[in-house]
């Protein structure tokens, strides 16, 4: 089960630095980083190890099935971030 970054994210990118499969974007070297609202986890690459959950300084990362109700749509937001260049109607 993939993990999901929800609304509290402050783009600290500790998660990007520890992810063993490099599935969190954007990283500080990416051109998108400057204007990024937050980081996102690619659900197709996430192996569910949960290392990112430990290092997140604002506890913004949840298992996809344990998101608080007000942030439940962030599973789709994370997925959608990685599809944005391939679909026009991808907005959650």
């Amino acid at each position, binding site marked *: 089960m993939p993990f999901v970054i929800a*609304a*509290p*994210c*402050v*783009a*600290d*990118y*500790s998660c990007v630095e520890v992810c063993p499969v490099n599935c969190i974007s954007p990283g*500080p070297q990416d051109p998108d*980083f*400057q*204007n*990024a*609202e*937050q980081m996102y986890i690619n659900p197709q690459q996430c192996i569910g190890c949960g290392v990112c959950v430990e290092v*997140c*300084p*604002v*506890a*913004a990362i949840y298992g996809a099935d344990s998101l608080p109700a*007000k942030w439940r749509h962030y599973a789709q*937001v994370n997925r*959608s*971030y990685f599809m*944005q260049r391939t679909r*026009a*109607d*991808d*907005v*959650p």
Partner: protein
Amino acid sequence: MTSLRVAVVGSGPAGMYAIQHLLEQSLFDVDIDLFERLPTPWGLVRAGVAPDHPEKKLIADRLFRFFLKRDNVRFFGNVEIGSDISHDELTASYDAVVYAVGASDDKPLAIPGERLPGSCSAREFVAWYNGHPDYRHLQFDLSGPRAVIVGTGNVALDVARMLTLPATALARTDIAEHALEALQASHVNEVIVLGRRGCQQAAFHNPELEELLHLDGVEVQIEADDLLPPEQTDADWDTRRKLATLIRLQARRVAAPVKRIVFKFHRSPIAVSGDTHVTGVQVQTRVGSGSPRSGLPRYGSPGSGSPGTIDCGLLLRAIGYRGRALPGLPFDLQTGVISNVAGRVMDGSVPRTGVYVTGWIRRGPRGVIGSNKQCAAETVGCLLADARAGKLSRRSDDPVAQALIANQRQVVSFGGWQRIDRTERLAGSARGRPRIKQTDIGELLTSAGR
């Protein structure tokens, strides 16, 4: 291994991330002194982040706190650089000084009447409701039914929420007591948010906008001529998300609304009305859809629509913070930052040896908390490169402590801050709140010394 003595000025995210990068390198033994003007650390994490965003404040407990617990880091709270210790004293005592002082001014609207009582910056309002000691005495006129906010960034939305959240919701946060009382007695029931450009250019972020969907008893109206279904635009993904949320907000029906937030896009304030106090703001409609495909100018230009006046008793400008010059350091008036290249402070084209900047005072007031991490990585990278090149030196060891004793300054150590922290949390737990902030310097110093 050589030792490096570094002073960091300012304990907000910019300063804390600078410390993190200094602690994570292994080229030098490093001793860090952190100077903070207030008795309390964390900068805008304490005094800027909205009270109803407790998750974001976790960063102090889950990250920043650990840096200050290190043996080679000392916290000097209640010490102001420039008055208690001069910039020259600091540079003489340290191999390197990193200024991370943030942006303590704001951009003016530059319209007539802006200085009338009742017209303030959102920055001041935020500092007031968050209990910043310098702003606790401010008074905001909440006796009228309408407040106007100029600007559409996250600060504008924070302020709009604070003005409309039910009193019971506010009372569960760490909002300052004086602000809680004032907002509980507030008569404001309509908040107008003015955007100079269209909704597709609004600066707020998606999470902040989405929160408006969850405000109890608050209906949201959107007046925008560029509010299009996301699939009909070629705007970027973040903007398409915002459009989807704005449409959802517009369609949302609130049973028995008690307050209202109205977004008016493509509107510019041109003058503040009132003789002795704000009575309204004159607003002009700007032409031009924000849609890049419309063929019209991307940004509205003034002078088209007829001006109208929006009556209000409170006008808050939320159009951006601005850095303040520090005595003895080169300042770029145009951008409101200390002149620098990649964090090295520059006198013209010459680097000021051993003096660095990071965070908002380096790059201007933009980005989120984590943007300061990348910023600090670069600044500290320059500092370490200069140290490796043998450019850094200090003339004396630790006269700072003597200077503080000579000034009879009551310094707040990290232990002192922990005592303040404990006092505030205890007071809060008795009332079902995360903490009750102490906002008076004398009271804070008493708690620190207890």
